[in-house]
């Protein structure tokens, strides 16, 4: 099956198979009809016209669910706490495990796969799904996603509900035919707060598949969302991932992203600060290796007055990996008293690696503050000398400096096990 052979019939029958409401099917079909006409996205400074985002063999694969946490593969076990109360595991496209504490259920929290959400919470989903953060007709890949979405979750936190325990989702990719059109929608209603952490993990060494992942985060008035993610898809998986948040008045969205894919990746992360007094913070850590080409665009757009946006990105590049780090702070006219800050640091571990940091400030308002810092460099020999002068061998000293360089982001991840896992992934990659 290639994209050319995907027609209305296939999309409709998949939609019916999933018992989707009519509006969801219509959204798919509209996107499918628009797909051909829309342009590809244009990530700044990375040419993607030769990348394959559209040809694939299978739309969905069926995978077995897990009856208990004991059945999980070791790679997933390493990510979850045995006593985890609020956990969703998706295996390729199949919802494979779900638990939500009774307490949260009682408070009206919804945490379920996207298809169940469409069936059981259709009105709520309809209000937020591809309406506020990301639109289906932005470009070819958002349209393709909307037409073919085959997995994902919906997390809804009602008004005034404060969730202290993190909510976790693991998207396991263990089938070589599985292409991920995954959609994550997190809605934190007025005065609520939630911490959500997700892992994308491939258990195979290489996989000739693609991932088209959209995440929407809506933080309504005075809500707070902490969003942690570790992407670790296999070599050969071509990924387009777009995580976008929208803030209401006085709300906060804080992202901590560990972008560890092994394949070519376009990663966008945008926070639209709509509400006055809202706050967006993105911390991103990246490791590139092998022949990998990656583009990381982090953007905070200020619409509301008194909004604050912070971007911190640290990347390590080795072998012949190439990465572009675009950081964009945009202050719209009228967003007075706002502050846009960004910092990008790239550490190069080999002669052939390439890393470009492009800080961009676009400001249409006078009464604001903004700042940026960017650097691309190598491991500081004075730091190595200092560490070695205490008896630490050179390789270990380098390891310490690299870990230290990435730590400000790694330490932000809200689940201890995920943090450890990310540290191990980094360890494996930079060795």
């Amino acid at each position, binding site marked *: 099956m290639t994209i050319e052979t995907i027609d209305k019939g296939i999309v409709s029958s998949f939609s019916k198979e999933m018992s989707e409401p009519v509006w969801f099917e219509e959204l798919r079909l509209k996107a499918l009809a628009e797909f051909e006409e829309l342009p590809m996205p244009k990530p700044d400074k990375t040419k993607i016209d030769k990348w394959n985002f559209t040809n694939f063999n299978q739309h969905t694969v069926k995978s077995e669910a897990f009856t208990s946490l004991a059945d999980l593969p070791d790679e997933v076990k390493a990510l979850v706490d045995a006593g985890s109360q609020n956990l969703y595991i998706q295996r390729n496209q199949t919802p494979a495990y779900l638990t939500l504490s009774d307490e949260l259920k009682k408070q009206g929290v919804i945490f379920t796969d996207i298809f169940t959400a469409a069936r059981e919470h259709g009105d709520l989903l309809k209000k937020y799904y591809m309406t506020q953060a990301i639109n289906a007709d932005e470009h070819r890949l958002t349209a393709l996603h909307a037409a073919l979405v085959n997995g994902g979750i919906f997390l809804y936190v009602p008004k005034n509900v404060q969730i202290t325990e993190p909510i976790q989702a693991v998207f396991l990719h263990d089938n070589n035919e599985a292409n991920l059109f995954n959609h994550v929608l997190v809605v934190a209603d007025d005065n609520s707060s939630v911490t959500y952490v997700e892992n994308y993990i491939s258990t195979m060494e290489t996989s000739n598949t693609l991932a088209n992942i959209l995440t929407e985060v809506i933080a309504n008035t005075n809500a707070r969302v902490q969003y942690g993610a570790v992407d670790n898809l296999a070599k050969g998986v071509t990924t387009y991932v777009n995580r976008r948040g929208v803030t209401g008045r006085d709300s906060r969205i804080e992202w901590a992203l560990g972008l560890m894919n092994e394949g070519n990746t376009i990663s966008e992360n945008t926070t639209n600060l709509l509400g006055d007094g809202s706050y967006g913070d993105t911390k991103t850590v990246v490791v590139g290796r092998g022949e990998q080409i990656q583009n990381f665009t982090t953007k905070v757009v200020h619409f509301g007055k008194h909004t604050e946006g912070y971007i911190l990105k640290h990347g390590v590049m080795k072998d012949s990996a190439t990465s572009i780090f675009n950081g964009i702070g945009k202050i719209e006219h009228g967003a007075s008293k706002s502050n846009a800050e960004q910092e990008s640091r790239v550490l190069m571990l080999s002669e052939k690696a390439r890393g470009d940091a492009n800080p961009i400030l676009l400001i249409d308002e006078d009464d604001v503050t903004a700042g940026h810092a960017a650097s691309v460099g190598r491991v*500081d*020999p*004075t*730091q190595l*000398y*200092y*560490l*070695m*002068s*205490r*008896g*630490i*061998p*050179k390789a*270990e*000293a380098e390891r*310490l*400096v690299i*870990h*230290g*360089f*990435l*730590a*400000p982001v790694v330490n932000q991840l809200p689940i201890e096990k995920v943090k450890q896992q990310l540290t191990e992934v980094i360890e494996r990659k930079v060795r």
Partner: protein
Amino acid sequence: MAGSTLTIKDLHVAIDGKEILKGVNLEVKGGEIHAIMGPNGTGKSTLSAAIMGHPKYEVTSGSITLDGQNVLEMEVDERARAGLFLAMQYPSEITGVTNADFLRSAINSRLGEGNEISLMKFIRKMDEKMEFLEMDLDMAQRYLNEGFSGGEKKRNEILQLMMLEPKIAILDEIDSGLDIDALKVVSKGVNSMRGEDFGCLIITHYQRLLNYITPDYVHVMMQGRVVKSGGPELAQRLEAEGYDWIKKELGIEDETVGQEA
């Protein structure tokens, strides 16, 4: 076993092709405290960097040995594991690496794989030494030297000295920028190390430090050489009279490197 011996013979050192040290001779044994004094620009810090193996400093001739082993053939980390330690004038700041993780890594690299210090033992030792140096225990979890004040950095160097227990330590201007209280604490740390297994080379501008750490030997450096050696009374005379009498005695007009008599 008695302490180690660091032997420096006719050491010549250049930086960026310019010769800074022009034949330094010095021997430091376990149980001895040596002070190297001298005005700015006479090569004191170059000596310490050359002993530790700073990559920018090139030894053009002469030798450095530790108990007969050729130090100049060792990498920086090997020198440290052989028993040398340098408390630096400007310690590096390293983001993301906590003081405790760094020190444990340093101790374990000395002990070798399979002989690592237990976490409990390490924490006990670190707490004990930090209390001795009147350091805030939170500093164990702060990033290495990051945002430390000048005084905190110097205390942290002495903490490392006490944790790593080297055979021969070089203290490069450990007293600069310290107030009197911090100076007393730093001196207390160094004095606690005194013993026949510990030799120390203190590099300083000021006699002040030597009021708290009494040296066995005092050397004066000028023009990249040790030009005068004596006992503690030499330091006192320098404090009282300055360096001019030495210059006059030796016929030196400008004591800095590159100015020949």
